[in-house]
Every structure is written in structure tokens, then in C-alpha cells.
């Protein structure tokens, strides 16, 4: 059994004292060291869930345990500070929050703010920048001179420099060109290998198929699915009901199984898996 980084037990959240519920009776666990994708439409409760996990909001009812910290409606603000040290939250379009004169100063700001010495902050910032492929010559440049993809990486480095154990990414590839998107996906895999627990909020089903170990689907504040991407994409009714578009590889594979129901031993959900499976069959066809 996986250890859980976060567990939600009957969590409900209302912004208007119980007239409407942004989140209702939500129970789930986020396994440590894995990537969990959170999907759902605007207004499904995704943002509320992220804000609760980061301790920015407290539940109206129920409790959650985040990295060993228990949070309920009556948790004191002071108790949240320590929790926030272990969580990194990369908001949508995080480059909009860049502000310092230089790239290095921007990335050092987070650790300095946590009370780390400037020497240690610099080491942490340099390590984070190098992880994101931002090299030394960029350190003294203004972040605003960089391309959009580079700015995004600097902003993420600012979060990683605080050495979080849980990383929340809200639509991390939105607005990036294909190359920039691919770079970020590679980075997310690398961070997972380094032991981080990752919560990924995304609309991109291709990313869910490629990256996620677990998927949680939210609709109008309720959990409507929890399972592996393969289980999710194998359920056309559920996908249609929640207007989720399956990855193109899944559509293509489904089409082929209409003619050849036994074609796949292991149903492919990514392009790589589809190509692997088809290549094996087609090699057989050539001989």
C-alpha cells in the first residue's frame, strides 16, 4: 500500500455559509511520490481543492491531513505556516508574478522569505535554475527579457528553490509552444523520479495519459471518478457524461478494436503505447 501525502476525509467547502457548496463530501488520498491528475470543468471545485490542500482555505466540514498536518474548520493560521513550507504551488501563468530585477534574485526570493540565509538561498536558487535548464549567463538578466517559455521556467524554479515535498501545478503548459510544453512534461517526470508528490491540474488528456499515476475527476464539487488513466479512458460513458475528450491515441485504438476486438492485450492510451502495440502486430503482418 502506498503511503499517502494527502488524505481528504469528507471535506466540504462553502463560501456562503452552507447555501451552496464548492466542494461536497470529498474523500480521496494522494499517494506519496506519485503524480495525481485533477480534472474537471470550470466550476467543478478544482481550484477550491487546491487552495484547501495548500492551506489557503480551511474546510467548512470534514478534515484533511496534508504531509502530516491535520486541517479542520478550527485549525489556527499559525499552524499553517509550517505546512506551507513543504508545499509548492505553481499558479496558472506563474510568470505573471515575476518581479525582481534579475533572474537569480527572483528565484532566491522564495527561500529568503522562508528565513534561509542568503548563501543557502543562492545555492538553492542555482540548483533549481539548473534543474530547469536555465544556465549561468541568464542569472543577472532581467526575467522580463526572456521568452515566454523561459519566464515560465524561472517562475517554477522560484517554487522549487523552496524545496517543497508536494508540488501543485495548475495548467503548467497553458499558452506554451509545443517545444516549451514538451520540456515541461519532461521536467515533471524528472521531479517525480526525484521523489516529489505532484498534483497536476490540467485540461490536456494527453498529459493525463502520459504522466498521471492516478486521476481524480471532479464535477460540481463532487468526486465522480478515482482510478488510473487506463481505467478512465476505457470508460466511454463516463467520458461522454463529463465532456472529457479522450486522447487521440485512445480514439484511434477504439476504432481499430471495432474491426479487431482482440487486437490489444493491453489497451494503449498514449501515442508511444499505441505505436509499440501496432508495430508488433504489423511486423507480424509483413512476414
Amino acid at each position, binding site marked *: 500500500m502506498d503511503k499517502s501525502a494527502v488524505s481528504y476525509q469528507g471535506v466540504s467547502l462553502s463560501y456562503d455559509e452552507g447555501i451552496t457548496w464548492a466542494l461536497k463530501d470529498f474523500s480521496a488520498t494522494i499517494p506519496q511520490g506519485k503524480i495525481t491528475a485533477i480534472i474537471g470543468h470550470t466550476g467543478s471545485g478544482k481550484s477550491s481543492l487546491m487552495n484547501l490542500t495548500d492551506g489557503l482555505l480551511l474546510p467548512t466540514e470534514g478534515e484533511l491531513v496534508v504531509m502530516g498536518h491535520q486541517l479542520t474548520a478550527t485549525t489556527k493560521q499559525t499552524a499553517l505556516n509550517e505546512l506551507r513550507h513543504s508545499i509548492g504551488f505553481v499558479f496558472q501563468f506563474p510568470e505573471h508574478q515575476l518581479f525582481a530585477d534579475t533572474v537569480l534574485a527572483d528565484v532566491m526570493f522564495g527561500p529568503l522569505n522562508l528565513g534561509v540565509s542568503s548563501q543557502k538561498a543562492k545555492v538553492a536558487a542555482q540548483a533549481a535554475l539548473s534543474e530547469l535548464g536555465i544556465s549561468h549567463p541568464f542569472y543577472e538578466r532581467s526575467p522580463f527579457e526572456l521568452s515566454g517559455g523561459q519566464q515560465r521556467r524561472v517562475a517554477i524554479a522560484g517554487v522549487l528553490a523552496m524545496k517543497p515535498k508536494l508540488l501543485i501545478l495548475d495548467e503548467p503548459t497553458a499558452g506554451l509552444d*509545443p517545444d516549451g510544453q514538451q520540456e515541461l512534461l519532461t521536467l515533471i517526470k524528472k521531479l517525480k523520479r526525484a521523489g516529489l508528490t505532484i498534483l497536476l491540474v490540467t485540461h490536456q488528456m494527453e498529459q493525463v495519459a502520459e504522466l498521471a499515476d492516478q486521476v481524480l475527476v471532479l464535477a460540481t464539487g463532487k468526486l465522480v471518478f478515482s482510478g488510473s488513466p487506463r481505467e478512465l479512458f476505457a470508460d466511454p460513458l463516463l467520458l461522454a457524461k463529463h465532456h472529457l475528450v479522450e486522447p487521440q491515441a485512445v480514439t484511434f485504438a477504439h476504432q*481499430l478494436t471495432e474491426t479487431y476486438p482482440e487486437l490489444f492485450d493491453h489497451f494503449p492510451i498514449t501515442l508511444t503505447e499505441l505505436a509499440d502495440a501496432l508495430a508488433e502486430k504489423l511486423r507480424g503482418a509483413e512476414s
Partner: protein
Amino acid sequence: MKTAMIKIENLNYKYAHQNKLTLNDLTLQVPAGQWLAIVGKNGSGKSTLARLIDGLLETPSKTIWVDGLEVNTENIATIHQKIGFVFQNPDNQFVGATVAADVAFGLENRQVSSSEMPKVIEQALTLVKMQAFRDRAPEQLSGGQKQRVAIAGALALKPQLLILDEATSMLDPEGRKDVLTQLAKLRDQGELTIISITHDPDEVALADQVAVLDQGKIVKQASPAVVLNDQSLIQRIGLVQPFSLMLRDQLKARGIKVPTNYLGKGALYEWINQQLATKA
């Protein structure tokens, strides 16, 4: 031979504050009833070109003709009657208090009679599947829904030429497919010439021809099949390959002898099906 809806000859354009030409000696024709996709990286001059066609920037004399009329101050009012222009950011073009009022705004400007108006609005909203939202305020809509309304507003005016500047970028994949299919239908009925600036390979695939802009020059003009099949070009201009070609190339990398020409999703599916059938 159809007449040209757009004719562009030796167009050069430079913004006052820049040293470099944004558009460099562009020559291009779009026959009436055709769809031209314009692709290229950010800053390649795509949006500038679209704005010059619509006379939103000062168009150099004797460089652009729309439906036979030179784009100049004298003709611009007539030309605007022929063109529907949809920008990327729908917030900058939403003027009505509700969805229906927004579509009505353009019609009122054209002095469409009030008895005719509800029908025209209904038709346009149905085309983009927004009829159920006719009484919603813009702040109750998602970005993609506002983009649909913007497209409905442009189509309600029955333009001869529709210019889309990344106008479907905020739509989800399902919604984008819906809207593009409707536009392709209007084109196929011969009612509409379309120019679309886009990064979406599926949108490119619907066009009749594709112009690839790079640093203000057209570096390639060809059918979608030819452009999309040119992998190095596609990468250079930051387009994603269509799914069918990604799969084809992945199969090739695994030692499968695949066709080298452009294959849409349907054609690749047929080819794989055939290969599998020979095995069975």
C-alpha cells in the same frame, strides 16, 4: 476560373518604430470560396497581414485588393461590409449586455430590419451552438463560449470573407471541431472565403491552401497535405504535427514500412486495417 477574393502584390510593411520590415515583398491570391490558413511563429507577421487586409493598419497603396477593390480610404467602408473579422481575445470585442444583444449590435449597424433580426440572430447562434445562452451576460461565459459568440456575430453579417485571428484558441477540442466543421460547410457551399491564422494542425488540414510565414516572408505556399508532411518545416515554425503523422512516424521508427505521403487520420486507419487484414 473563380475570381480572386483577395489579391496581394509586392506588399511591404514596416511599423514606424521598427527598423526591420514586418512584411517583406508578399504576393498572394485567395480565390473566392477558398480557405487559406496562415501559419508561422509569433512575430512572423501573420496578424499584421490580416489587419492590413481589413484596413485596420494603413495599407500601402496598390498592394491589396479585396473582391476587386483596392484597400484604401476611399473603398474601406465598402470593403468592411464584405469582411467579418474575429480577433483572438473575445473580451475586446464583446459589446452587448447579453449574447443576443452582442450579435444584434453588428446587425443594427448594418440597418437590418427589427422584424428580420431575431431570425438572423437565432441562425448565427445555432451555427456555433450558443442558442441556449442567448440571454447570458458575457461574464457568465467561458473564454471559449465568448469566442463562439464572436464568430456568430461575424457570421450574422453574412460576410463574403471571414478572417479568423486565432479565433478558436480557447475552445476545447470538441467545441473547436464543431465550429470548424460548420465553417467548412459554409465554405463548401461556396458562400464564404476564409483566412485563418492558426497553430492548430486540424484547422490547417481543413484549408484549401496554407501560407507559411517566416520573418515577414512567405517561405512556402502549398496544400495542407504538403505543408503538414514537411516535418522540418513544421518544427521550425512551432506547429504540432497532426496525430496521424506522429503515429506514422513512430511506426516508421519501429521499422514498419509506412507510406511516405501525407495521411489523414482516416487514410492511416485504412492503411493499418489493410495491413492487419493481410495477416488474418
